[in-house]
């Protein structure tokens, strides 16, 4: 079966022990997998969860120096690395370290940058939402706003009538005051009690609707 985990990692050399394996890539990284009961994978842990490692695992503490050779004993691993070698000024070594090892580091940096961009976008959305919440308090939009956000209903309503058109009706919810008017003889002000039910959009005045219902429908009479 194809080891998909190592696809594209450019494995150029491998070494196999009794029940573990090492893979060396072109850019000098070493992957190890298999049994680890003696720590032969070199992954710096002997914990019970790492007795058997089923997926290739990068030897991270050796990743800073390019490995050039890997060998396995039965339950041992040997990895040869180059760093600060006297021949490090050769063309091959320079190319090796610069282009290949740093290519992987570049991938990591790109990932970090992408993460920071995503993080910034999230913060931006959050800030936008907060500003919208703040600005929402006086809402003057055409759309119906929720009932709870509306200002509380006034405690009383006033209706101004001309004295000529005034029809007095007995209703316990109204109080009628008569004021002298500078234009005419006097004006009538009716004070209504606050509405008992509040529905979407329109305030219904119970007394008025009740009187409308009591009034005979002229259409029915015809």
């Amino acid at each position: 079966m194809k080891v998909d985990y190592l696809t594209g990692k450019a494995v150029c050399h491998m070494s196999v022990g009794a029940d573990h394996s090492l893979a060396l890539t072109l850019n000098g990284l070493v992957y190890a997998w298999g049994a680890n009961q003696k720590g032969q994978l070199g992954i710096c842990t002997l914990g019970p969860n790492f007795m058997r490692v089923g997926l290739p695992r990068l030897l991270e503490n050796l990743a800073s120096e390019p490995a050039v050779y890997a060998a396995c004993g039965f339950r041992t691993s040997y990895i040869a690395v180059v760093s600060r070698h006297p021949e490090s000024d050769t063309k091959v070594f320079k190319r090796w370290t610069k282009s290949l090892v740093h290519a992987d580091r570049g991938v990591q940096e790109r990932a970090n940058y992408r993460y920071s961009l995503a993080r910034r976008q999230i913060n931006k959305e959050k800030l936008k939402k907060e500003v919208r919440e703040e600005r929402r308090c006086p809402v003057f939009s055409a759309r119906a706003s929720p009932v709870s956000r509306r200002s509380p209903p006034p405690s009383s309503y006033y209706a101004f009538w001309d004295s000529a058109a005034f029809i007095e009706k007995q209703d316990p919810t109204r109080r009628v005051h008569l004021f002298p008017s500078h234009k005419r003889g006097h004006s009538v002000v009716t004070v209504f009690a606050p509405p008992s039910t509040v529905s979407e959009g329109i305030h219904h005045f119970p007394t008025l609707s009740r009187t409308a219902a009591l009034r005979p429908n002229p259409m029915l009479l015809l």
Partner: protein
Amino acid sequence: MLYTLKMEAGGKVDKRQLLLLELLSPDYLMLEVPSELLPASATLACDDPAVFISPSTLEFKSPSAEVSVRLLARPQSSLSLAIRFSFGQSLLVPVYFSQLPAAKLYSAGANDNCQLGFQNTSPDIEVESSPMKCTSIPLEVSYQGTFTTLSAGEKHVLAVTKDGQVVVWGSNESGQLCIDEVQSSTSVPRPVAGLERVWQVACGQTHSVILTYENKVYSCGCGQKGRLGHGSEEPLRQPMVIKELLGYRLAKVAAGYCTSFFLDIEGKLLSCGNYSLGALGHSHSQSLPTLIPDLPPIHQVSSGKAHTGCVDFDGTVHLFGDPSDGRLGSPNPRSEVTAAGLGNERARAVYCGGAHTHILTESLEVYSFGCNKKGQLGLTRSDFQ
């Protein structure tokens, strides 16, 4: 490692190919030349006498699309060297081989016989409560010198330094360290006197095989079932030349648990040692290096506990030995993995472990099969329990 260098129509070679060649530092090179550039004959030469080219003179009777040149470089004296192919009078292709000597060597794992190259130190937090002789943190082996290649057995290690010396540490129970003075084990890397211009080392379970520039193969250690190749089963505490192999120009040596393999530059594979369920390639144990029958020319070989894999020049993997756990890729004791099983790619190398096998393809992808009880195959986490 095999590498194919493709030449374009104008006789040029892509720079990226050369860079890859530089980094891979292959042992064998195959050159693909367009048919219009092919002359009637060609001569291949190299300035360095440590480079074998086989064949050195090519004659083309019928024009074919590609020509294969097997090239064996031993770049130990110089960091990089140029090989010039001269086709007729006009064409020159410089090829650079490089081998970077290692500056530091880190080791991790079991350390019960000081095979890590230092005394047992347990910096692990988990270990402090119950002292185990192992480390999971890779620690540096202190040695004045740079290692170029290294091979490790069960309890001993042989490393080759830049100036061609062998440095050894670990257990010496069967004399596998080539030093007679050390009785049980040594934690300090010690150079072996008497071995010069060493090119390759290979370690089995309790024996060691050493190949030098002068085509001499030395072996020492435990000699059960003739794994040392001297025709006897006696253990050796001093390295001795295998006389049977003096007529061969060897390219590579390899060692399984109880077997030794010797690869010729023409692709002949010889083996000796224990039968070990067919991993030897013969039906009986052999105490002298014997040619394995029915194999095409081989360029890479690796042997595990009870199975052996080798890659031929066409990129086909040949596996033989114990077929249990699916480590051969098929239930037969002798099987082949062709390009069809590797996503239509040729195999570059095969690596055999205790009960699992890895194949590295030409586009540097890894295929694995065999036992996965300890997660050796490196597949997804859900595939093993």
